[in-house]
């Protein structure tokens, strides 16, 4: 009797352990750790990247392409305070694109969770068969190689000195003068969006935020939002920035008018770095979405850690109809081009006649 009870307890424990293993995704993990099919190879690579196990991830690559491990890790994990260094791979989705007996192409959508929100990246990965195992052919990262040289940087810098006095009539410095050049209320399926452009008309830099309130027919406020990060907050003299303010769940039919305010502040600023936006063009990406792509070139001598692209799209009448934004997860090294792409909604792409791109940037203070 006692022996039978012991056998029962052992069996029950084994069953419970097996159930726990299955529940915890044991089968999935086992599949991810093997590479017996192209999908398993890619899944295993993504799982290693998700676990930030760079040795394991690198071991799953096909090494005929001769990708140095340091370059692979730098591309995946980021470097020099880039946005990727503040990101982790949250999830991924895999689709087969093409397959044969010895090689296959799979499309992977990587969903990164980053310091500025979630970022999606789509890659087509080639997978080759090596005996019983499939390995991912990782394209060799194309990091710009800049020869050693001296780049003189002598751009202007503005500092604000002294203390402000609250006594009436004492000499003070006014806030920068800014002007909202355009404002357009756009209805989207799930929201109302205010888009437009703002200019710093002054001769000093401005730190700017824009707030908008949707007003009901009776004059009361339906919703109030600000431009958050869809604006270039620091505007140098005569610089123009697009802005976008989202009102989730609002409908234009509820809105009688819009009240919009710019809030400029006088701040210290530097005219460095200068970032050019090169070879911009509109095309379709691997998922068939319309995108605006191009390359950012940091023309200054300091590394730009995080860059954000803001693109304003105009209709044939020159009216701003949409503002897209996207972060670049690589750091911008001096003189080296870094690709970017931002989405354009399908209906906007059909009406779009022209566009303008500006770059917002963050550079960590140097030691």
């Amino acid at each position, binding site marked *: 009797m006692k022996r039978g009870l012991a056998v029962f307890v052992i069996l029950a424990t084994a069953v419970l352990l097996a159930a726990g293993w299955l529940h915890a995704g044991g089968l999935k993990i086992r599949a991810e750790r093997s590479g017996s099919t192209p999908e398993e190879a890619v899944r295993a690579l993504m799982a290693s990247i998700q676990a930030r196990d760079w040795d394991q991830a690198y071991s799953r690559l096909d090494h005929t392409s001769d990708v140095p491990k340091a370059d692979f890790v730098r591309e995946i994990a980021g470097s020099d305070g880039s946005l990727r260094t503040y990101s982790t791979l949250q999830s991924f989705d895999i689709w087969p694109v093409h397959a044969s007996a010895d090689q296959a192409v799979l499309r992977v959508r990587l969903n990164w969770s980053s310091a500025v929100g979630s970022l999606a990246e789509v890659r087509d990965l080639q997978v080759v068969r090596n005996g019983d195992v499939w390995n991912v052919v990782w394209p060799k990262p194309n990091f710009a190689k800049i020869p050693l040289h001296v780049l003189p940087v002598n751009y202007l810098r503005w500092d604000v000195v002294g203390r402000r006095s609250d006594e009436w*009539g004492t*000499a*003070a410095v*006014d806030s920068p003068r800014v002007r909202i050049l355009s404002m357009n209320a756009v209805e989207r399926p799930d929201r109302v969006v205010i888009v437009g452009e703002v200019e710093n008309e002054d001769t000093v830099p401005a730190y700017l935020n824009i707030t908008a309130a949707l007003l009901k027919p009776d004059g009361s406020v339906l919703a109030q939002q600000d431009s958050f990060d869809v604006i270039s907050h620091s505007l*140098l003299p*005569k610089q123009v920035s697009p802005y976008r303010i989202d009102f989730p769940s609002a409908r234009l039919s509820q809105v009688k008018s819009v009240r919009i305010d710019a809030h400029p502040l006088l701040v210290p600023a530097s005219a460095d770095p200068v970032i050019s*936006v*090169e070879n911009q063009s509109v095309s379709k990406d691997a998922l068939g979405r319309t995108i605006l792509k*191009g390359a950012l070139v940091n*023309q200054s001598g300091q590394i730009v850690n995080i860059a954000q692209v803001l693109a304003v799209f105009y209709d044939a009448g020159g009216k701003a109809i949409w503002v897209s934004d996207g972060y670049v997860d690589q750091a911008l090294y001096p003189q080296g081009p870094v690709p970017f792409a931002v989405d354009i909604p399908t209906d906007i792409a059909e009406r779009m006649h022209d566009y303008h791109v500006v770059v917002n940037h963050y550079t960590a203070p140097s030691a």
Partner: protein
Amino acid sequence: MLLRILTSFCGLSFALLGAHSAAQEPAITAPKNVTAGTPFAISVVGQGKGTLYLFGPTQAIKREIEFGKDTPIAGSEASSAGIYQITVCAADCVTKVVEVQPAAPARLGFLLHPSRVPVSTPNAVNGTAIAFDQYNNIVITPSEITFRIAASGEKISEKTVRTVRGVAAFQMDSRPNQGTLEVTASLATASEPRVIQQVASEACGLRMTAAPSGATITLQTDPIRDCKGNPLPDGTIVSFIKVDGAGKSTVDTPIKKDRAIAQFSVSGPARISVACGVVLGNEITWGGR
């Protein structure tokens, strides 16, 4: 605020009491008008003792007095201009009102706005001066404030404005040349200088030229000036836009030493334009026919 309400309430109460008793004995002797900061005396006809209350705009005083003797009020106890109410109570209360008027102007409050102004802008500069006496009372007696205007590179001019209820204001156009604009407001011995900056206005006649340099072209603007010939300050952003076979390229570059410079690589014929804020410059067709 609370003090004022309390003072008004007490003042009203004592006024009613005073009105009730005034018919019997109009006993307080005090000047009708006093200059702020000037000492004066209050006396009450009769014999015995009583309590003196002095309610002013900013303070209230209570003092035990002897009737038939002068009670001195120090200048510091009546330094705020306005209506003071004197109430003396013994068996009954009597009330009298004294007006304390501002002293001679001794100080000027001067606001010159804005701190930066584009050149040649009509009525863009405005100044407001308020005359105060040494006790910070607004001097409401009309007086003439002189504004001495000194713009860089111009002769000094003066404008005299008479105060209305203590305030003198003026408006003027900004000058056509950039630089400092110093305005000094003067009244009697008091003077207050203020300096604002007149800055270049929008770019005018923005023009660039292109020159090949290896595989790229270098774009350089002519010195960028406003319509009055003032150079736009360094750091002002100029946008260059190039459209060619490779797509569209843009760069926002700051002015350095009156000019903005940019470099682009070109793929085939290119169309290049330049803008500064909302001002468009010339357009160049590069390599086209």
